[in-house]
């Protein structure tokens, strides 16, 4: 089962739309609620990242009988040092974004905590791709 969602820069109003849709699907598949929760938390975080820190992007989700794979491809400033960004408290967010309550430097670490596999690749000035995987069993 394949899904695609678009997210747009600074469109905080619609943050969470993709996670909600995926959540509904996973509930119908009888996935364990605690696993659904992990997927939703990670995806929501990634969704907000693309909205807050990039110029928007596309979310690709694939659900298979044993796992969900999500790829979030954004066009944006990119992350110069991924290892640095993976640590709690480190953030590349602008002061404006921080004023809105985002950019606490918890995004990537929080995703990592909730998924079974995470891969972040980024090119400065081009964009970031976050790939994550959560196993159902």
């Amino acid at each position: 089962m394949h899904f695609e969602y678009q997210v747009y820069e600074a469109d905080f109003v619609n943050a969470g739309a993709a996670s909600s849709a995926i959540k509904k699907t996973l509930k119908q598949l009888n996935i364990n609620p605690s696993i659904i929760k992990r997927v939703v938390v990670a995806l929501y975080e990634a969704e907000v990242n693309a909205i807050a820190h990039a110029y928007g992007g596309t979310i690709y989700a694939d659900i298979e009988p044993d796992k969900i794979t999500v790829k979030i491809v954004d066009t944006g400033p990119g992350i110069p040092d991924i290892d640095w960004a993976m640590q709690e408290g480190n953030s590349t967010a602008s002061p404006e974004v921080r004023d809105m309550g985002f950019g606490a430097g918890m995004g990537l670490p929080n995703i990592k905590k909730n998924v079974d596999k995470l891969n972040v690749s980024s090119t400065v000035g081009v964009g970031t791709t976050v790939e994550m995987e959560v196993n159902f069993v």
Partner: protein
Amino acid sequence: MEKTPFFHALSIDEDACIGCSHCMKSCPTEAIRVREGKAVFLPDKCVDCGNCFKACPTHAIYVEQDDFDSIFNFPCRVAIVPAIFMGQFPNDISVSRIYGILKEIGFTHVIEAESSIPIYTAAKNKYAIEHPDIRPLISTFCPAIVRLIQVKFPSLVENLIPLKAPIDITAKYIRRKIKKEYELNDDQIGLFYITPCAAKIAAVKAPVGEEKSSVDGVINMDSLYNRVYKKIKEQGKKFKEQKLPISQLSADSVLTSLTNGERRLTNVQHSYAIDEIGNVTEFLEKLENDEIEDVDFLELRACDQSCPGGILTCDNRFIMCERVFERGRKIADRERKGEQTKDHEMEQERVYLSRDLHVDPIKPRSMLVLDEDISKALEKMKKISEIRAMLPQTDCGICGAPTCDALAHDIVCQHAELTDCVFIQRNLEARGNMDVDESLKIMEVIWGEEKMNNYVKKK
């Protein structure tokens, strides 16, 4: 997951149902279909919220209750009355007078359901302290909400506070008290709960997380209202009542069944009080996504304005709220002057009542699951999205399902056919793949023969 079927208090009177589908459109869990011109409940999806009851123009949806005269099967007959019952009557009809009338029409004892609120609140707050890892805690006060969470938000089931409802604690207390006082057996005491809604009946008759009901019968608030009002009229304006010496409930207890009533008694920092099932659903969606931070307690109620908005109450809910609030205000004044309200007597039994306050963990019973086997569920889901793409997305309901999505779901689960959709029928007719008689036959299966012939008859 819980397998035993839900007990439901709502039923459809087939003779009165005109198959208008208003109920189907009003149902927040898509638990109603129309077949052969009559509304049909899907028991796994219904949470007993009562929206359909309110939407029905012909009163074809009714709430089953015990026969009033069944109270006389017991030598000792106790009415357990929610505080909002008093809020249905004008301010000049006092609580004492209503107590008196309830005894006149057949009850030997009257106790308000909220009498156990001090004990219930203490237990709830203790649970909050003992379980700092579970946040937010969700109140189980409203049984429709418990069911909503079971069917629609299975991941939040563990947030429900697994405590007996105040009515059950009150029932346990009064039964023991009467037994001691009059030296009676259990079967000589009949406890009757006066209910403001269908969900409470379902909860009392088949409690979630408990084995057996704490009361012997349930009487609908509207039918008791009629009996009490008749007496008031008979007594006339000049009636001199006997005042109850002290207030039966503390102000806190009186206010509990109003929105914010429970929230104001919690010991946690951040809490919300949300009423009306649509509002609750919207909030829980966000909560499930972890979009809401810092929330420790949720008071959730299915009806607008909480219990005064129940389907069996007999006055405008806002007016009822004001009356209940006013009663609370007066009691609070007296409490400040040192009056000890009657419900404090229950404190003496605290140890006994606290012994088994906890119910078994509440289990999810998701209605969303397409198949227990995930590969099969994925298959079905693919089919649903294919079918959805063919449907008009008008949610017109002519197929007998509330939405196009619900129809797609029904088709895949083999409860409906693609040709139930009137748009598909027209298309097939235009292409010569279906004749008019065939499509009329389909409509007849959904809407009944009579409806299909109304036009012909009139001509």
